[in-house]
């Protein structure tokens, strides 16, 4: 198979993700693997490239939540074929991000969108799920040492848990080990600052930019107070 035809096939995989077509994505992914294209290229230049484009369209308000969720299903249909072949040689990661919806809150669509967009950008995502107990966040940071902890809440009644989680990290001496990014509909930048978060994202595209800012641009955290007492 020539390089040109390989690139065409990878572009078609990306196109199938953007077209929100899970069956076509899976068929093209299977064809690419059968023709000997490296699994990591299928993932990065096909599936993830398509999902990155979806992220761009979402940020530009050309795509909305149904499109992003449908695209993530398409990507997952292809990724199911690639995943077993990557287990022996994991991809290099841009960074490790732990994500979770805080205790008492089960609204996880926003978190799921952030997750797929981060994965498309090459980040390793530890998905803690929804309604995550406070202790689970501390345990995750201690055990897996992610670069960033992303906390999501959709309810005004649960967003205050974020402050408690940050306090838990301080108590455990882990606050300086991880940057904390908070997001969700009821949050504001002032609230994020008040509770000592390092970053705030009102929506998924901003969350991706904030992750990059926190990891790669060396911008100082937004905390008003010293992180660890």
């Amino acid at each position, binding site marked *: 198979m020539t390089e040109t035809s390989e690139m065409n096939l990878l572009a078609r995989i990306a196109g199938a993700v953007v077209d*929100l077509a*899970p069956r076509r994505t899976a068929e093209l992914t299977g064809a690419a693997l059968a023709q000997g294209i490296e699994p990591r290229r299928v993932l990065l230049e096909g599936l993830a490239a398509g999902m990155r484009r979806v992220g761009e369209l979402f940020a530009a308000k050309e*795509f*909305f*939540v*149904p*499109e992003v*969720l*449908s695209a993530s*299903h398409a990507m997952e249909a292809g990724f199911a074929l690639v995943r077993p072949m990557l287990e022996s040689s994991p991809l290099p990661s841009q960074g490790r991000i732990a994500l979770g919806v805080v205790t*008492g*809150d*089960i*609204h996880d*669509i926003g978190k*799921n969108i952030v997750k797929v967009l981060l994965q498309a950008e090459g980040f390793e995502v530890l998905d803690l799920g929804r309604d995550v107990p406070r202790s689970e966040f501390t345990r995750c940071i201690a055990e897996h040492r992610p670069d960033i902890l992303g906390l999501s809440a959709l*309810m*005004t*009644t649960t967003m205050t848990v974020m402050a408690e989680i940050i306090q838990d990290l301080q108590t455990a001496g882990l606050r300086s080990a991880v940057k904390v990014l908070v997001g969700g*509909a*009821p949050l*504001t930048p*002032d*609230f994020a600052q008040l509770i000592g978060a390092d970053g705030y994202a009102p*929506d998924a595209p901003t969350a991706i930019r904030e992750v990059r800012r926190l990891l790669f641009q060396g911008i100082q955290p937004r905390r008003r107070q010293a992180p660890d007492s």
Partner: protein
Amino acid sequence: MTARERFNNLFGPTPAPIVFPMVAADHAARRAGRRIRAVVSDAEALAAVLMQARELYDYDLVMVFADTMIEAEALGCRVCLPEDDNAFLVEPLGHLPWAVADPTTAGRMPVVVEATRLISHSLGSKVPVLASLKGPFSLACLILGPEEFLVCLRADPEACHAALQFACANQQRFAEALIAAGGIPFIGDPLASGDILSRQDFARFALPYLRELIAQLHVQTNLVGLHVCGDTSTVIGLLTETGADFLSLDEIELSNVRRALGDGAVLMGNVATQLIVQGSVRDVWAAAHDVLAAVAPRLILSSACDIPRDAPEENVRALCAALRDHARGTRGAAPGTPARPVRDEPP
């Protein structure tokens, strides 16, 4: 003049703004020192705390709104009702078969209907009573599960239309019971938000069912209100096609809406909810005056969305106080104006 007369005047030749911060059961329960679950499970308790909240703040409407899960629960979705927090969906109903819920027996629908009747009986001659119900799109999301439903819009639109048609029929029956109890149907469609849906999807999946539901309700009642959460700037023109008599809007510049819809439209909103939670009394008061200046007189001065349960009482009072200032002919400072006359100081 009673609040009901002032409300009716909004739709007549001599309108003047009225005020209603969107106080629902959770905030009212907190103000009354009651636990939320006890309040949203008992008609008398629900009616009592909502009427107490109106007395506390002295606003012009009452809204019977227990929580967002009333209809989903009545249809058989598994819902968690925490002791002192808002109800949330645990497990959606899934696909067929569905059966329209009987408002006299299903879940907590009878609680809401009876609370509407009790409040209408007690206050209805003087105070309009809004009765909250979900829009078909939001209810269909809860029936199938929000993520599955939103994916289905692309993968299986016919299945979505089936769920929407069912949700519409269910809400028609629920609304009939609320109207019979003395309520003015006030449809909330939080998931049909412009933050979630494109204009095309709103037109395809939300608008037809809102239009159908509202048309059916207009056979039985004169007025139907509609609230949509989030940014609705892309669908403003479509919202007028729903046939709703007044529109409650969340994150949008109301002055633009006024320009787009004209002076005849009755608007409700929209002091930012987060400002009411986190801002100062002066912030809320000034923001309320800005809304009044931009959108009155056909205005129900309100919060952008429901008042959160722990919103400071003084901030809710400030919103109501702004309307009274306006009625007296005083007004808050325009944005950027550093000082106000002493008589305009917030409460």
